């Protein structure tokens, strides 16, 4: 079978790969690009463990073909921390013990970031519905919702502070 040649951007880096036309983006990320943060929990779009963003849109990478991301911008959990600094969501997940086994965590982080990117001050209900496509079997979601809420508040505080700073400048 002849492969498809794809040029794309993953976490800001230009990337090229060749894959069979039927291969999922999840398999491409994991098996061709060594990005194992996205997990396969079901392969059918039902668990969210494979969540990534394509051009800022939250998707299940098990339902997207590798060939479809030609020219797109793909974001994975590996791109969340900036250098040595964790994203606020990541540090809040650790601080609030929002992970037990951690297999669902990359998917939750990507989905939570997608939520906060479009709604910086979500209610508990909005958080719960935004994360309803991600399954976690360990935590009962309690500490996950609290971590996302805490991250939203922290990001808001940080934004006010840096806003004030820039005004002063």
């Amino acid at each position, binding site marked *: *079978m002849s492969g498809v040649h794809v040029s794309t951007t993953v976490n800001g880096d230009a990337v090229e790969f060749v894959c*069979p036309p039927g291969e999922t983006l999840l398999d491409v990320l*994991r098996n061709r690009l060594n*990005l*194992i*943060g*996205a*997990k*396969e*929990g*079901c*392969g*059918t779009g*039902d*668990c969210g*463990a494979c969540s990534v963003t394509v051009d800022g849109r939250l998707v299940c990478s098990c339902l997207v073909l590798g060939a479809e991301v030609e020219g797109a911008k793909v974001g*994975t*959990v*590996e791109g*969340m*921390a900036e250098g040595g600094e*964790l994203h606020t969501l*990541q*540090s809040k*997940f*650790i*601080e*609030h*013990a929002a*992970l*037990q*086994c*951690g*297999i*669902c*965590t*990359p998917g939750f*982080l990507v989905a939570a970031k997608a939520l906060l990117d479009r709604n910086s001050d979500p209610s508990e*209900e909005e*958080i*719960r*519905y935004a*994360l*309803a*496509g*991600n*399954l*976690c*079997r*360990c*935590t*009962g*979601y*309690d*500490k*996950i*919702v*609290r971590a996302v809420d805490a991250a939203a508040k922290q990001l808001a505080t940080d934004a006010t502070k840096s806003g004030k700073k820039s005004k002063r400048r």
Partner: protein
Amino acid sequence: MAETAPDTSFTNQDFKIIGTRPPRPDGVDKVTGRAKYGADAFAAGQLTALILRSPHAHAKILSIDTKRAEKLKGVKAVVTCEDLPDLTGGNRGMLDILENCMARGRALYDGHAVAAVAAIDAETAKKALKLIKVKYEVLPHVTDVDEAMKKKAPIIQPHIRTTGVDPKPKKASNVAARSQFGHGDIEAGFAAADVIVEESYKTEQTHQGYIEPHACLASVGPDGQGELWVTTQGHFVFRNTCAALLGMEVAKLKVTSSEIGGGFGGKTHVWMEPVALALSRKANRPVKLTMSREEVFRASGPTSSTSIDIKIGATRDGRICAASAELRYQGGAFPGIWGMLGAMTTWACYDLENCQSVAFDVLVNRPKSAAYRAPSAPMAAFAVESTIDLVAAKLGMDPVDFRILNAAKEGTRASYGPTYGPIGIGPTLEAVKNHPHMKAPLGPNQGRGMACGFWFNFGGQTCTDINVGVDGTVSLTVGTMDVGGSRASLSLIAAEELGIPYERVKCNVADTASLGHNDMTEGSRGTFSSGMATIFAARDVVKVLRNRAAAMWEIDVDDVAWEDGQAVAKGIAHSNLSPLSLADIARKSPTTGGPIAGHNETVADGAGVSFASHICDVEVDPETGATKVIRYTVVQDAGKAIHPDYVEGQFQGAAAQGIGWALNEEYIYGEDGRLQNPGFLDYRIPVCSDLPFIDTEILEIPNPGHPYGVRGVGETSIVPPLAAIGNAVSNAAGVRLNHVPMSPPRILKAINAAK
């Protein structure tokens, strides 16, 4: 050597850092995607494996033709049961494990493995599976537990004769075992009763539903040495099992446990790992084998479905005078101990003069059952705790007061034999009674329920090492998998004992070549038994540290004490010697006797029993029968919470699983004996928007069998939810559901029938 006899002198001590909530050591790896789970390992030249599974619930396998598959380009190995000969030497239990991994002449359930291939890529492997021709002779099947017990039911294992009955039966049946527990005079007890309630219940089969499917990377060389990377709750046990089944030497098979993406009991058994090793041995290449979600549902180990009869008699003053139960547990196609465990736990919450439980382990054409968090207890508790509410109502008593009056306490003879030491059932009930949740107002169509639960917890074999680095940091090496934050808890324990900051300890999970045998992380034993071994290993280290300090000071070791993380010279004669920190001593270790280490091997006894009481509010939509949990509170005895975040996490996770079991989750089999819903779309586990926050209250009634008083915490809280929700639904909708899951159609049917 450290002493291994439980030293209770530290129970209730003032802890410095035990009970604090520092970040877990593996946190950064897990939030950045760096942590490696079962499917995240790759080896040079690895092949991809796939398994061919039976589409029939019960069939004779007449022939398997693999020739065309073997000839396909890119296929490197095909195996059937011929490649996994019986080396078990008459050990039927081991042969069952082998037969479950690969069918031997008969397929016993939909999804039973019949052949496997390893090929250069998944696409080739998929094609190869299609080229394998299997001829089946389909046999009659049975998937329901009550049907399977009937005389005319198709026999699943012709060699089975029911154990636990006298005389031993001459004929085969699907009842693998009968077990009985209890004491007193049941007949006399019921004769004295003022009220008697008798009910029958059913619970459907559920799956642990861990998000990570089974996955492994196996590599066996022509020299007979092998390595296995695998997601498991017990890599030492996997090593022993795989080595025995494949005829390998234990020391020559190194098993490394990956990070584990959930297990809850389902990753305590081998399901496919011996097949991966057999493929690798045949192909002489590393082989990666992962299950799809559908395979996880069809061919790993869900929990039993059950059918249970309960009879409780009580006197007008509110005392239970007789209690009896008959429990029928379906164990899939191979015998297990699920009925026995159910019978042991049935009456464990109560102080009863006359009680009895009789259980049957029943074979059906479903996958072999496995443990699921406090295995077998939730179903028995559903039946008992629902009936307890009915008895209280009949007596006109408050259900909490009724339970308090009958609760087991220290000195109570447990229904399964032993006499209880200090236990938490009474205190959890008192906490429930006084909880603000119990007094909160309810809206229309809302109802409140509560229920209790019990679990034994286990100790078992453990081996732990502590090595002190020259810079004074400490490496703690354990052999129990970290399934939910135990590395943090164990680091806290080591730091507490040594008197050093938590950040100076790094906890690692060792592979099977690097540490002595450790049993599974099951029975809530991770923090209990590795914690105990860590305490003794740390005390072993302290002995060495005192010796080294004595050598540095050139004084008698008896004059050296270990206080607050430093060696202190005792007595006026030594008042000129200033204390030496762990780091001071470590720095000098190359010249004072070499590396500083401590270790401990133990069979940890004394895992304390644990009790929980839950409160739950639900709202039932009378039009659709849909039930929403609107408030939930867990009260559980932890003995001592080492890291409270992860104790709460266990309570919350267990409660959420119980809620799913109670309301939604079930294996649905068709007339053809095939599983109809092997996926997360049709087997629906609770999602974030289904649940409220789950409040927790940790009680600490120290376990005298552990130096810090720790009890296992991981399992008990899956026991009460089924009945707590059942009782709440009954109070909300005025109908009692004796069949879980209480799915909308079942509730609607009950509401309409009651009209």
